[in-house]
């Protein structure tokens, strides 16, 4: 009996925790439809903040930057990361310790150190050579750097889950090295590559700190815009942008999950 009461207590705690986890997001979403300019009181349903967003060129620009940054960096990261994942798999019998440390580095590095290192580095390079002036380019560079490891790990684990004789079978069935890449490795990897792309995309959209330090004056993304807007004062308009971001990230994450599930 004691046991059942204990479990019931835990269940109550679980639901409280869920409220704790989702309350801030729900509040943001709810007040994005509030008709009055406060998050302290509910004044009725309205879409006025969304309408206002549509006419805000800065926000539209920021959405564009965010998507552009996420797409470009994800494409580069998927290519480079997949190559690393393949190399790691093909040569997994070797001692690759240093390489693995290098690949894990972007994951474990505190993002403030990551962002500031890149900023300081880019500033110096820019001063010496005129290259790498802060903007979308430097942001892409930084994002690719932290996306590569995740792609490499996804691709690597897909390969590890594969019957190793498939590689032999492809050779045995007259596939030349290029044909093996085109007709065996890439098609087999397709679900993993898609899921890696979605994860990279999510990571890019989610990132604030690294973007913040590598961004230029003309390349603010949505999180940077929100950051700036918050510092000027809370406004329901931010609620609307944030709601759009929550919805889109959730959508992409669910898509990625579905791809992963179908693979398994």
């Amino acid at each position, binding site marked *: 009996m004691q046991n059942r009461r204990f479990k019931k207590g835990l269940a109550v705690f679980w639901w409280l925790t869920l409220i704790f986890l989702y309350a801030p997001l729900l509040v943001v979403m709810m007040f994005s439809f509030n008709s009055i300019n406060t998050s302290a009181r509910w004044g009725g349903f309205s879409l006025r903040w969304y309408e206002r967003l549509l006419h805000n060129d800065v926000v539209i620009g920021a959405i564009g930057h965010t998507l552009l940054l996420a797409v470009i960096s994800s494409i580069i990261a998927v290519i480079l990361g997949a190559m690393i994942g393949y190399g790691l798999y093909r040569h997994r019998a070797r001692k690759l310790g240093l390489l693995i440390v290098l690949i894990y580095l972007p994951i474990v590095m505190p993002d403030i150190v990551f962002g500031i290192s890149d900023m300081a580095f880019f500033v110096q390079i820019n001063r010496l050579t005129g290259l790498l002036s802060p903007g979308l380019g430097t942001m892409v560079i930084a994002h690719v750097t932290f996306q590569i490891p995740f792609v490499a790990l996804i691709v690597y684990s897909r390969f590890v889950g*594969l*019957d190793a*004789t*498939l590689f*032999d*079978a*492809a*050779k*045995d*069935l*007259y*596939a*030349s090295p290029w*044909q093996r890449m085109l*007709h*065996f490795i890439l*098609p*087999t990897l*397709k679900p993993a590559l898609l899921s890696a792309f979605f994860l990279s995309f999510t990571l890019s959209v989610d990132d604030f700190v690294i973007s913040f330090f590598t961004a230029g004056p003309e390349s603010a993304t949505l999180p940077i815009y929100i950051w700036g807007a918050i510092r000027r004062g809370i406004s329901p308009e931010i609620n609307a942008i944030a709601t759009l971001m929550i919805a889109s990230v959730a959508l992409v994450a669910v898509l990625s999950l579905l791809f992963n599930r179908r693979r398994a």
Partner: protein
Amino acid sequence: MAERSPTAAPGGPFSAVESTTGSEASAAREASSISLKGIRKEYPGGVVALESVDLDIRAGEFFTLLGPSGCGKTTLLRMLAGLDEPSGGSLSIGGVDVTDTPPHKRSVNTVFQSYALFPHLSVRDNIAFGLKMRGMARAEREQKVVEIAEFIKLGSLVDRRVDQLSGGQRQRIALARALICEPDVLLLDEPLSALDAGLRSQLQVELLRTQKRLGMTFVFVTHDQEEAMVMSDRIAVLSDGIIQQIGTPQEVYERPANLFVARFMGHDNLFSISAREGMTVQTPIGALETEDKNDGRVALIRPETLELTSPGAPSVEPGKRLNTLMCRVVERFYRGSNVEYRLSHQNGEQHSELIAEISNTGDRLFRVGDEVKVEIYPEDVIMLSDDEEGA
């Protein structure tokens, strides 16, 4: 060689109907022979997987590499496929040296132990994979798939997804995928070992019939001596990277070259020889007459060659001088078609055990505890060299 050549229909070897227009397809293909000279496989640090293998496999032969795991049989097979490089020696298929030819340029196909069907492709595309890599047009590929499906009786399997297939079905798809390429040689790496016994013997028969119909050279790897005997024209028994014996199943079974082969073929009744004088050898079960002129350290008497009679009965062949022993039945295993007796024999202080396998012809069976007279023909006492390099 000539009588094994395939008599293929004009539409290719798999076409079920006589085609009158199939002039573009191959004419009757000659099967290919394989020749290995001094093939070695050595890893850095002096680990030797194969020690100078010389082997000639005839065209159209069903040839089996038999041995325990780690004996080098799979390494040898992978070298034939080109998936492993030999450290030395040369290899030719159909008279052409292919030692340095990469696997995708060898007209050799393999049925893998795990079948290795591509998970991203349908069954149909799996079967056609090799043809596609060779650049065959889609329409022609599809025609070939229809033919092979007919030939191996795949029925509706070609329309399934790979993950919907059972083990036996996968095996047949893997076979179809390899055969459709019409290779010079087909390699089979323990293709039946993952299947249960009933299915296994059924597929053994199917595989053998397929090989005979095509007249193609098959090289088969297995660790199961019964499977090897059922299927092969000839067998090579391997151990520790060395070929111990090459011969027909009958030769390998009845005249094993050495103790290793005898043990691996499942023989009991092995008796060490302490002395030899002319055609008489001293063993723990007493002096035995033999007709084997070879020198050996161990005598093998196959259980099915023993003759059992009651102690007072006349000799089974009165005119001939047979080895005669008195034994007692310790255990009896009734198997329907034959009966196995475990016999104990006392030779002074020496106690030995013999096994006799008597085919069941409806005679009275001996009972446990019975005393029996065992007679052994001198030609059934076979000398084996003790050391395994006496091949």
